[in-house]
């Protein structure tokens, strides 16, 4: 079926590589967007196009996290929970998402609209906390913005169904000054993010320990480390 509907795409993809097998990731993306997720039949179809044993393609699907061999929502929300995002409230964001949607992680809402997943670093740590909706970046998602975001995504559900979950037509978003989501302007010069300057009233710092080695007590008769 893929060969009938996307023959030109497939031939373009195959022409890029000196080995047919290299086309397996792009073709799986294509199949995933065409069928919604990678059914067994879809995987076998890709294997047939590439003259590969189906097990090899099943293995690839199982290894890479962006391939779904199970039904997923129209929007797959991948929330970064790595350390830099965690500092700026990734856990609060995940909690807010789960509460708003009434689902647990790795689950899909009853209407088939959203799936929520945790992922590791998405390489946008300066705009933390970050999530991807069908691989569209959404920067700086504070828990207060969750409902606005979900409403925006629901309004674009038809578009998402047409584009698929593989990000082949992705677009990145940030929050405009009016509080609405807007595609990022790549022509604008990069400006580092500036947090509001007003520091919270700092508690008086505890007395520093004059000795070396991070506050570990050392018996008085032991010499200091030569390091």
């Amino acid at each position, binding site marked *: 079926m893929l060969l009938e509907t996307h023959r030109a795409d497939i031939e373009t993809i195959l022409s890029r590589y000196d080995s047919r*097998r290299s086309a397996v990731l792009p073709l799986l993306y294509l199949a995933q967007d065409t069928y919604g997720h990678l059914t067994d039949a879809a995987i076998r179809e890709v294997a047939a196009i590439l003259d590969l044993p189906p097990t090899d393609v099943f293995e690839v699907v199982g290894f890479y996290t962006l391939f779904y061999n199970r039904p997923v929502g129209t929007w797959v929300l991948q929330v970064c929970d790595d350390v830099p995002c965690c*500092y700026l409230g990734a856990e609060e964001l995940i909690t807010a998402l789960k509460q708003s949607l009434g689902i647990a992680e790795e689950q899909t809402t009853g209407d088939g609209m959203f799936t929520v997943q945790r992922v590791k670093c998405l390489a946008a740590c300066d705009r933390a906390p970050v999530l991807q909706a069908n691989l569209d970046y959404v920067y700086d998602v504070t828990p207060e913005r969750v409902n606005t975001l979900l409403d925006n995504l629901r309004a674009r559900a038809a578009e998402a169904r047409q584009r698929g979950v593989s990000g*082949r037509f992705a677009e990145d978003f940030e929050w405009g000054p009016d509080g609405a989501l807007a595609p990022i302007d790549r022509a604008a010069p990069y400006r*580092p993010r*500036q947090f509001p300057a007003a520091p919270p009233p700092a508690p008086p710092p*505890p007395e520093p320990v004059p000795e070396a080695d991070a506050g570990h007590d050392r018996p008085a008769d032991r010499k200091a480390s030569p390091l």
Partner: protein
Amino acid sequence: MGLSEHIVMRELDVPAINDFEVYRRHGGWEAYRMALKEKNPADIVAMVKESGLRGRGGAGFPTGIKWGFLPKGVYPRYLLCNCDESEPGTFNNHQIIDRNPHQLIEGVALSAFAIECHTAYIYMRGEFAAAAITLERAIAAAYRAGFLGKNILGTGFDLDIYVHRGAGAYICGEETALMESLEGKIGQPRLKPPFPAVAGLYGKPTIINNVETLANVPRIVEKGVAWYRSHGTEKSPGTKCFSLSGHVNRPGNYELPFGVPLRELIESPEYGGGMRGGREDHHPRRGLGPLADPRAPRCAPRLRERRRRRFDARLRGGDRPRRYGEGAPRGLQDGRVLQARVLWKMHSLPRGHPLAGQGAASHRRRGPRRARGYPDFA
């Protein structure tokens, strides 16, 4: 200690440099045109060698010397650009592709000419979907202008550049795993030797460089070795895009010459702007950026100073290539800087994940051996 002119993050000096015409007007593709018409590949390799450009992917290996490892007379060769930027806390490659993609493509093209290869792949992590589209558009513009394709500028040189998207696997940032992935297999690293320069992609000689490394090449060829070496230090010329995140007032990418002390990067109002909440307890981690909780309890000043000196030394481009995140859990435990839940996260990392560290503390890890999303390294 700022830069009068950025080498890689040129969008700060030139508005809308992501547009092909703007890039052309600011000298873009001229180095490539000049190289094709007037130089031979060995000249470009020599220039890169003399410039002292070192790989920006982490190991800091001199790029020109790496290119020199290619066996003579063995073709085809491949050039791979590693844009599988997944290390927690790094995000400069993402920005280079978003804002200054033409310079990367020119860098790939120039490097391909230098190593006499006719097919180059830019391997991007699967999550960089929109960035991949940006890059493909920029490549299409270069084809239209006649800088890529067959018989480029009438010189008889052929070059095709393709974007290849991974599909979500941290390990594919390792160079041999990346090649496996590009060959359509699961991303398991290969044993070395043979090194990629001898037997890489499809068993052919292959050079693999990081995005930031390749984006430096056009400027070296355009402005010359002496100009390039006027930045940075003797052993590490040039600049580095430092990614600051976490509890600093101004998280972001900052391009600075090698040799700037880490304290300045964090404290200067031009760059990091200091720690949020005004604390001075830095616990910077290479790879993870400065991680410090302003609410952290005490940390002995002497220990802090010692660490600071060590990291300054690395920033100045010390010779020893070190692992990212080395010893991180230990420092974090000793200084008790992290909130409990972050610390738990560190503990739950799989053995072999760079954040899990190779230091004395790693054996003290508790918690599960594997974290979801990463393959088992054990």
